[in-house]
């Protein structure tokens, strides 16, 4: 894509990713032609309507969708190699070492019958020939990094012995222990209060600054995006509708859905008053309109919106899936 830095190829290039689930009645398409890139060391935020396909997209990058029901088409190029055509063995070799994921539901990623130390060591030893003793030391250091107090004692505890927020931090430690090139973080701080969240955000940013780890940061928290990421992808109904630098979107979003989202932030309205929200709801997959998927809810819909909307380039840095982007002046989070 032309808005990327030219020179070195991107670390990750997702091209026309189409994910569908099969069920007895047929097939339900979830994402349509999702394309984006992440450069080495870059921090990219992903926001969008609940249910629009963010988690499913993240899982597909690691080959973690249910094999029986998920159909994935397109290309996922990681350092130039297509993860979708790779053997299961090859993919396992990369998972954890080169790409790792912090999940939305921490308990789904931690094994209740092993101690936290055993799980950290296993992740490390699956990819690197380190001694048991060294793996333990590295595990303690990883827990310390994410702010777990007395890590040398806690390393022998089981997941249930940690509070919700601490479990989340253990998972972050696990995702980072191999120093991967790409971390996919799915709402990593939703279960954390703001003081711990600030600590974790600082840690993630510091790591990516010093070790060059790239981050794909899925979240509903636009404040977190503003403090962490340089670029923002906005998704709606299974499609990427906008890609632009974070500061640009916060001031001047290019897609009416992004604008509606930013205008819904509670900080912009009077205490106790009605909160703005985008009227209507996302169409069910079976009733998805031809043309722009946002048209039934868009205050700027006009003749022409019933046409299919490609992701258009507005300038070197911005893409939007709306033919009116160039003529509309849309409000963002700040005026």
């Amino acid at each position, binding site marked *: 894509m032309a808005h990327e830095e030219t020179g070195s190829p991107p670390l990750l290039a997702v091209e026309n990713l189409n994910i569908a689930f099969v069920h007895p009645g047929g097939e339900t398409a979830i994402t349509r032609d999702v394309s984006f890139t992440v450069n080495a060391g870059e921090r990219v935020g992903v926001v969008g309507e609940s249910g629009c396909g963010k988690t499913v997209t993240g899982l597909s990058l690691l080959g973690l969708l249910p094999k029986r029901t998920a159909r994935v088409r397109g290309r996922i190029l990681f350092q130039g190699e297509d993860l979708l055509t790779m053997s299961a063995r090859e993919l396992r070799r990369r998972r954890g070492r080169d790409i790792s994921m912090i999940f939305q539901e921490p308990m789904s990623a931690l094994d209740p019958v092993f101690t936290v130390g055993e799980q950290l060591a296993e992740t490390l030893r699956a990819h690197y020939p380190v001694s048991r003793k060294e793996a333990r030391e590295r595990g303690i250091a990883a827990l310390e990094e994410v702010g777990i107090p007395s890590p040398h004692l806690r390393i022998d505890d089981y997941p249930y012995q940690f509070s919700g927020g601490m479990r989340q931090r253990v998972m972050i430690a696990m995702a980072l222990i191999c120093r991967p090139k790409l971390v996919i973080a799915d709402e990593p701080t*939703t279960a954390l209060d703001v003081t711990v969240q600030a600590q974790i955000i600082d840690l993630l940013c510091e790591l990516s600054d010093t070790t060059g780890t790239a981050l794909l940061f899925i979240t509903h928290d636009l404040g977190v995006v503003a403090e962490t990421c340089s670029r923002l992808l906005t998704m709606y109904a299974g499609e990427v509708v906008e890609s632009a630098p974070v500061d640009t979107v916060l001031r001047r979003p290019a897609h009416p859905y992004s604008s509606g989202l930013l205008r819904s932030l509670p900080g912009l309205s009077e205490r106790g008053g009605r909160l703005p929200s985008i009227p209507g709801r996302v169409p069910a997959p079976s009733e998805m309109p031809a043309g722009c998927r946002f048209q039934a809810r868009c205050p700027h819909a006009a003749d022409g919106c019933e046409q299919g909307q490609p992701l258009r380039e507005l300038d070197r840095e911005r893409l939007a899936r709306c033919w009116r982007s160039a003529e509309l002046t849309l409000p963002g989070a700040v005026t």
Partner: protein
Amino acid sequence: MNARLTPRPSTQAAGVRADRVRVHFPTRAGTVKAVDDVSFDIRPGETFGLIGESGSGKTTLGRALAGLQPLTDGRLFYDGREPSSLNRAERRRQRRDHQIIFQDPHAALNPRMTIAQSVMEPLDILGDGDRASRRRVADEALERVGLAPQIGRRYPHELSGGQKQRVNIARTLTLRPRFIVCDEVVAALDVSIRGAILNLFADLQDEFGITYAFITHDISVVSHVSDRVGVLYLGRLMEQGPAGAVCEQPLHPYTQALLSAEPLPLPSDRRDHQRRIRLQGEIPSPLNPPSGCPFRTRCPRAEARCAEQVPAWREVAPDHRVACHFAGPA
């Protein structure tokens, strides 16, 4: 608005009072004082916000308010009466009137039930109306939280995090409660749907005087929806008062640190990087809380006295209380 989804009109808003409530958990390593000597009142028809660090006791207190967690000590009054003074019929009625929407939407849904079955289940148990009318109420509740009725045919694992959370909300609304404890119910939702759900809560409150206890990590949300706010730290209340006062002129050092750490959705040149008060260290173990003021190990203003004396729960302005020896503007 449809009357079927709403509280019974004859009922009044519920008031709740907590008097020196304690919930302690005995564990092998010692006693966890999850909630320790907490007193406050929630006025009929108001929204009482609860904020605090992870592990500070919010969920435990919420479960106690909903009648699901026995108290170690202290008393709870609903409309001025203790649950122990109610007769059987009144108690049954209260079980329906007081509901909690849980923090973890996944754990709250039965994986073997379809979404429609889950939403109808509470009504099925109560035997309200016939099956067709229960089905209608369920569909309508799903619609109100912004989900298409078709989603009723699916199973929990086929839903996104935010969809599951909304199913949970719908399930509670079918019961038409008078008092609802909302535990992190909007954390998994995008800001637009979050706005719509919070408006829905407000509508139900305006029309039928529902009382809410609203637990959340999100300060912008708690500040927006609450009439009054309580701030918990290690099982104790640090500050409590009108939402405007607590969120705009916090007097307790912990509240000040909490508010300063909220990430703001502003472009980089508009953010004040000096703003954040960095707390030293970690929340202490609830098995072994610090002497004196529980916040003293991380408080930027702590002095010798803070380790010796438990700060009194002082009313420093009308309805604005603080537990700090040196409370005052930052």
